[in-house]
Every structure is written in structure tokens, then in C-alpha cells.
């Protein structure tokens, strides 16, 4: 049974037709002599894409349509890339036109998958992972295609494949850098900064005079470019991770202070009056009412801080370090033209940062499960 052609499929068909007038898709590298290989590849690419379009148009099951589209679009992409296996800018315009068709089908696939509503928990989790993964993969695919296809100088922007290779072969160096930057500076600074911000917030709450004095200042300072103090911290706390931790402490302290104080104020008059009718003391009210209610705000600060801490520590390493650390590696390897190493470190930073954030978010979900934002569908 045929339904209306999705616009992505329609445009993909048009692009595939257009590309036929642009053959060949890529210049053949001098080393390779068999044009037959290129032809076979071309036929495979077209075959997969047309199969995908067919599935999109004629298949009934949403799930299967999504799966077939996923396979077709990405297999076509893989074969398409074999045409530019060299890194010297072999791609011709037709290459990008066909790539655009692949991308449209991937988009269509994401759209179909987004519409799925799996019953099982496992299904939902898989879907929640796979949809963004496709999106992320296409950022990398396009990056790869542009750098390799156009022959962008390696030291300006390396293709992701080179970055990945570098990452795999430099794991020991990267592990040492991660240990220095994340496990020493970030973790220590994050814990100290968040804890002291939290304690300061409680003090500010307990002593209204302090609150009225500290809060405007805290609000102000949390808007300041705290990164500017990195060189000063290096001056004060030395070259090792302590100075980076100090930067992290300062960067994370104020968001935690401001958020916690705001969180302690969210309880409604009625909730507080209830405590009053029990003649509850300050600390009872704090622990039984106001802190639990402040939970979402505290977690908000923990999440903001998880990204701030990483950035703070890495940038602080620009201003003097021992010869290990992610920031050190990034700034040094640029100077050595090892740009692939730079991107490998950045990728690792982003992965760790996302895991960090995701971890905090999971704990948040477990601790503040009662908050309306998590409640949907639990009733």
C-alpha cells in the first residue's frame, strides 16, 4: 500500500537524479586504476538509497520502516565514503549532492523513530539513545566529508577519523591528563566549591543580615568573568592542580550559593505555616521542609557547575601547569601542530563532561523524583 511520498524521500529522489548529471562523484586517486570499482560503489550507493526510499514509501510497520531506513541510509553513506578514502580533496559536487540525499533519509529515519512510542522501558531507553546518536553521527559524517572531500589542511581541522585514531593510540597520555585535570583539579574543586556554596547559603539563610549583605554580592559575582582570575590563582596557589581547583572552587561557589538561597525560598506560605502550627524550630523546618523543597534548585546548580568546573580547570591550565593535564595538552599540541591530539582531548573532555552531567541528572531524578517535572506518567 502506498502512502504519500515523504518530502525527504521526494527531495532525495530529486537529488539522486541531479547527481547523475554530475558524474563522477569523485576524482579517482592516481594510485587507483580500476574505474570499475568506482562504478560498483556508485551502484551500491544508489541501490541502498532507492531501497530506503522504497521502504519509506511502501512499508507499513513504523518500526520496520525506521530500521530499514536506518540501515539503507548509513550503508549508502559508508560506501559513498570509500570514494574519497584519500585525504586530498577528491570530492566533486556530485558527492555532496548524494551525501545530502543520505542525510535526508537519515533525517526521515529520525522522524519515524521519534514518532514511535515503545511500550517497554528498554525500548524507550534504546530509542532515547539511538535518536540523538544518529544526529551526532551526522555531525561527524558531514565534518569528515568536508575536511576530507575539500582537503582542508590537517592542522586547521582534522577529520574525525584521524582524531579517533589518535585518541585510540594516545590512551595512556590522555589517561594521565584526565587523572591530572579531572580527578585532581575538577573533582576537588567541584566538591569544595559546591559544598562551601551550600554551607554559605545555609548560613545566609540562618542569618538574614548575612543574606542581605551576601546575596547582592553573590548575584553580582556569579555574573562576573571569573575565568579572568585564572592567572592570579596560578600566581597564588602554584602550578599544580591546586590552583586549578581554586579556579573551580570560585567558579562553582556562587552558582551554588545563589541557587540554594533561591531554593530555600520556594516553599509556599502555607507549607511554612504548617510547620509553624507544629511549633517546629528553625532546623526542623529546614530539614523537613525547606531543604527537600530546595532540592531541584540545588541540583540545578550541581548541573550548571558540572560543566563550569571542567571548563574552568582546562582554561586555568593555559596559565601554567606541570607538563600534564588536558588544558596543557591542548595548548601545547596546537603549538606542535598535533591538532588531532587537540581534538582528541576535546572529545574526551566533552564525553566526560556529558557523563558527569548525565550522572548528576540521574541522581537528581532519583532524589527529586517527586518534582512535577519528573512525574509525568507516574500517577
Amino acid at each position, binding site marked *: 500500500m502506498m502512502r504519500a511520498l515523504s518530502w525527504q524521500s521526494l527531495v532525495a529522489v530529486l537529488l539522486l537524479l541531479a547527481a547523475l548529471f554530475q558524474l563522477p562523484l569523485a576524482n579517482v586517486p592516481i594510485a587507483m586504476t580500476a574505474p570499475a570499482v568506482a562504478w560498483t560503489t556508485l551502484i551500491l550507493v544508489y541501490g541502498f538509497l532507492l531501497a530506503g526510499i522504497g521502504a519509506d514509501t511502501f512499508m507499513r510497520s513504523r518500526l520496520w520502516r525506521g530500521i530499514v531506513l536506518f540501515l539503507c541510509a548509513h550503508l549508502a553513506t559508508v560506501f559513498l565514503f570509500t570514494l574519497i578514502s584519500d585525504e586530498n580533496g577528491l570530492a566533486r559536487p556530485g558527492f555532496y549532492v548524494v551525501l545530502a540525499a543520505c542525510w535526508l533519509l537519515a533525517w526521515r529515519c529520525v522522524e519515524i523513530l521519534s514518532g514511535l512510542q515503545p511500550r517497554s522501558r528498554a525500548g524507550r531507553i534504546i530509542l532515547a539513545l539511538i535518536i540523538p546518536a544518529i544526529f551526532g553521527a551526522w555531525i561527524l559524517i558531514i565534518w569528515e566529508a568536508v575536511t576530507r572531500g575539500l582537503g582542508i*589542511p*590537517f*592542522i*586547521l581541522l582534522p577529520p574525525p577519523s584521524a582524531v579517533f585514531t589518535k585518541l585510540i593510540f594516545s590512551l595512556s597520555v590522555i589517561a594521565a591528563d584526565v587523572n591530572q585535570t579531572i580527578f585532581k583539579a575538577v573533582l576537588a574543586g567541584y566538591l569544595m566549591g559546591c559544598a562551601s556554596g551550600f554551607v554559605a547559603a545555609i548560613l545566609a539563610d540562618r542569618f538574614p543580615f548575612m543574606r542581605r549583605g551576601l546575596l547582592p554580592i553573590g548575584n553580582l559575582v556569579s555574573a562576573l568573568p571569573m575565568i579572568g582570575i585564572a*592567572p592570579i590563582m*596560578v*600566581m597564588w596557589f*602554584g*602550578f599544580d592542580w591546586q590552583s586549578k581547583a581554586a579556579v573551580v572552587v570560585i567558579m562553582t561557589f556562587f552558582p551554588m550559593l545563589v541557587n540554594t538561597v533561591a531554593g530555600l525560598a520556594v516553599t509556599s506560605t502555607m507549607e511554612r505555616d504548617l510547620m509553624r502550627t507544629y511549633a517546629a524550630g528553625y532546623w526542623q523546618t529546614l530539614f523537613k521542609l525547606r531543604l527537600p523543597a530546595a532540592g531541584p534548585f540545588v541540583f540545578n546548580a550541581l548541573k550548571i557547575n558540572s560543566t563550569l568546573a571542567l571548563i574552568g580547570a582546562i582554561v586555568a*591550565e*593555559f*596559565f*601554567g*601547569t*606541570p*607538563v600534564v593535564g588536558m588544558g*596543557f595538552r591542548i*595548548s*601545547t599540541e*596546537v*603549538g*606542535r*601542530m*598535533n*591538532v588531532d591530539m587537540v581534538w582528541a582531548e576535546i572529545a574526551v573532555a566533552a564525553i566526560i563532561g556529558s557523563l558527569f552531567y548525565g550522572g548528576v541528572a540521574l541522581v537528581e531524578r532519583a532524589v527529586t523524583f517527586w518534582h512535577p517535572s519528573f512525574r509525568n506518567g507516574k500517577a
Partner: protein
Amino acid sequence: ADEVTLQLKWVTQSQFAGYYVAEEKGFYDEENLDVTIKPGGPDIAPEQVIAGGGADVIVDWMAPALAARDKGVKLINIAQPYQKSGLEMICPKDGPVKTEADFKGKTLGVWFFGNEYPFYGWMNKLGLSTEGGPDGVTVLKQSFDVQPLVQKQADCISVMTYNEYWQAIDAGFKAEDLLVFNYTQLGNDMLEDGLYVMEDKLSDAAFKDKMARFVKASMKGWKYAMENPDEAAEIVVDAGGQDENHQKRMMGEVAKLLGDASGKLDPAAYERTAKLVVDQKIVSKAPEGGYTTEIFDAASK
């Protein structure tokens, strides 16, 4: 006029006085050149800038230029205004380091970003590990100033004869308080500020001609700066250099590094630098064709 963009390795200071003088004094105009001078900074890699097409010619040290060449950015030296190296390591005399033999177990400040090669060459020669520990040296990535010395965070730090050395003096160290290890005197020097272009562009005769005129005018600027250091420093300050006294002093020191101020590259110096680069495994294979005398020859006609 023909346009030329020059990317410096560092911020505007007397280290680059020749180019600013040539611009200010109209030497570039005389050669029918319209030169844009882009200052650098601590994390600007001139090699990246030229690879991205952001400059026609760059000031760079030889070792990082050869490293970039190894990575596929075919840089080629067309002139070498600095014939000597200005790199030193200084230690306070009241500290623990008295001779090279005392380095073991100490902490040394080093500049990275492509400036670390002479240091590693030296340590290599001394047979000292740079991984720390009692039998090696602990290396610090040093910031742009002499604070590590003031704060006693390092036992010795890197300085340039023309710049950071004088900051140490300004900070209250007397010359006689300081122990100086000069890379040139120890025979560990590598070539510093030279002019580099992309090799493939040299196949264009017009470009070659333009560069010849550029080198000619630049060296004229350098000569003028050498002869009139105070005026040169003022020109630098007008162009954005900080602290007039400091720039004057710097100009005086820079003059000592220019040699005959001809801008001629000494092939022997090149070979020595190239060998060091290979020894340290900075490059994967021995550099070839990292310089050309063609431009210099055309310029000196």
C-alpha cells in the same frame, strides 16, 4: 601596491621592530608593498594562520616551522633576520642551582607551544629525564612572566635576553644575583625569528618577486632599527607595544641578535637545528628543503 600580510609570533614589541620601522618609515611603500602586520599572542600558532590563508608570510622559530612542514604544511624559510638565539635559563644565585649538574631533582620553567624544543635538546644532551623524580628535572609550563621565580615556584625559568630577563631585573633581582645559562653559549641554540612562506606559492614568480621586495624592505627596516634603537622603540610603542623604557631596552638587546642584519640564513645553523629536530623525534623524517636562498639572493641584488 601589492598586499602582504605578515603574522608575528608574539605581541607587538621591539622583538619585531624591523617590520614596524619598515612600515612606519615607508620602506615597504618604496617597494610598492602594502603590508598588514598582525600581532600574535600566547596561543596563536602562526603556522596555522598561514595554512589557513590568513597570512602570506610569518615570523616563526625554526623548530616549530620544521614540525609543521613534517605535518604537511610546507613552510619554507626565505630569510633569517635573527642570526643568534636569545633564549636563556636563569636561576637565582641564592637558590640550589649553581651548575648544570645541579639540575637533577629541580623544577625548571619552560615555554611550550613550539618553544620547548631547545630545552628538551639541552636536557637530552645532559642525559636528564624530564619526567621528574630525583634523577630528572620537573618541568613546568611557564606563563608569560617571571612570577615563578618571584614566587619560588621554579628553581630556574626561561627568559629571552631581550624581554623577560629585564622583567626579572625590574622585579628586584640584580644581575649579579642571577645565574644565566645562555643557549647560544652552551651550543644548544636553535634558529629563532625567521621569515617563512608556503612553499607551493613560490612557484608563482610574482609572489617570489613580492617576497624578495618584502625581505629587502624588512631588512632595511631592521638596519634602521639597529642604528636608531630609541626611535625604533617609539615606533613600536606607537604600534601598540607596552612600556616605552622596556621597549628601548629590548631593542638594544635585539640588536645583538641580528648579527650583520642581512637576514641571511646560515646553512650550517639550519643543518644543526634540523639535526636537533630529528634527534628529538619532533619530526618523523629528516626535513628536506626547509629553506631557500633564492628570495634572499633576489632581495640582496
